[in-house]
């Protein structure tokens, strides 16, 4: 059990102080770097909030996919196995598996961007 405020909320506050209070005081040549610092803090905050959710959600979907093929891979190896199988078109012969594989690729990508760059998602028409 950790004390409050939580890590993500501390990061959010620190970022606000950085951008609102400190950035205007800095000379122009340091501002880009400070914006990069703020961006890093925002990513860290979103990833901390999401905790292990993404890894677990993708592992669940991969388990479903691999149950269909009867492989029974260990969860921690599943993503590597998935990548390896995509390299050789492993799912091409089965329309449901192929569709499921693409769904997982979308889910993985959109979930990662929600944390790393939600503005990119919005710019591409995703909510």
């Amino acid at each position, binding site marked *: 059990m950790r004390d409050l405020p939580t890590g993500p909320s501390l990061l959010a506050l620190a970022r606000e102080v950085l951008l609102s209070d400190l950035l205007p005081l800095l000379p122009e*040549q340091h501002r880009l*770097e400070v914006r*990069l*610092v703020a*961006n*890093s803090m925002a*990513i860290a905050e979103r990833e901390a909030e999401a905790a292990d959710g993404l890894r677990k959600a993708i592992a669940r979907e991969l388990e479903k996919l691999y149950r269909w093929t009867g492989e029974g891979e260990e969860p921690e190896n599943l*993503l*590597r196995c*998935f*990548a*390896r199988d*995509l*390299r*050789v*078109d492993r799912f091409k012969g089965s329309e449901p598996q192929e*569709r499921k*594989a*693409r*769904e*997982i*690729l*979308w*889910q*993985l*990508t*959109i*979930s*990662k*961007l929600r944390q*790393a*760059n939600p503005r*990119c*998602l919005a*710019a*591409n028409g*995703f909510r």
Partner: protein
Amino acid sequence: MGSQRSELLPAAGVAQDHRTALARFLAAESGAAKVEFSGLAPLRGGAIQENWAVDARFFGGLLTGDQRLVLRTAAPTGVAASLSRNEEFAVLKAAFAAGVTVPEPLFASEDPAVFGKAFFVMRRVDGTAAAHRITRDPLLDPSLPAIAGRLGRELARIHTIRPPRSGLAFLPSYEQVGPAQQIAGFRAYLDRHPVPRPVLEWGIRWLETHLPPPVEPVLCHHDYRTGNYMLDGANLTGILDWEFAGWGDPHEDIGWFCCKGWRFARLDREAGGIADRAPFYRGYERESGRMVGRERVFFWEVLASVRWAIIALQQSDRYLIGGERNLDLALTGRRATECELEILMLLDPDGAPSDA
């Protein structure tokens, strides 16, 4: 990766013996009695190479008078695909001779006694290469289609340079760097990368099964995009950053220029974030006398997204593995996922599932 950014960083240390050796080198190469510096400072930008603004007075010789120059040398760590400075200098000379709008290349040295490492010197051109500014500036808007046309013509001029060329004999043959070899390189990198990238594997497999027939190779810039040309107002003053140049399919540069990763603030403007494809293609087709093959461009645009993703990962490797303390590089790795989104959008006709 741009080079001639106008913004100077605060004065950084150049050892006095390097200043002296550089002045002597420039005097000897230009035939001047002596050279004196009024400015020597690093320029912002250049994630892979370091660029220095050199303001110098030449006493006699080819460059007599005050000159504004750029000295280009390697950053502490780089990416494997880039040319050496001497090779980049040779490519820049070939482009200059072909009538491409580039900063005039002047001198090169591989002697570490002069500046600590190999470098070359070119003229400094005016303007900005800042892509976010170029793609956002409302004052530039009316000129952008014409600029896109000009960039198409410039690209066609680059593509007039064809092998064999004795001065460019160091460039690997197209058979060594064609799409199949690039795919092998992507996979070799992913095999070493600690985090699996299923979307890249999926996209690479598509590329492997859709290889276009071979073409007569031309000199490709291989980083021809918004951010790597200088605009002084609406005037194009220079195509920059030739470190990735090599023989290739001309559509490779067109796909790279148009790929979404290089549209910056304007994803809707498919030619480099500055215009529709039509004026860019038209400029290219008029100058080259050849039609742009739309299907070939699509292939190279998919490859561009894969390549940009791999470069983004390699950039963050410079922090993760190379130990280069640079937040910009560290963050660039996250951009690989943006490229993966584009790969999915290009290649999956069904689009994202509703619950993604």
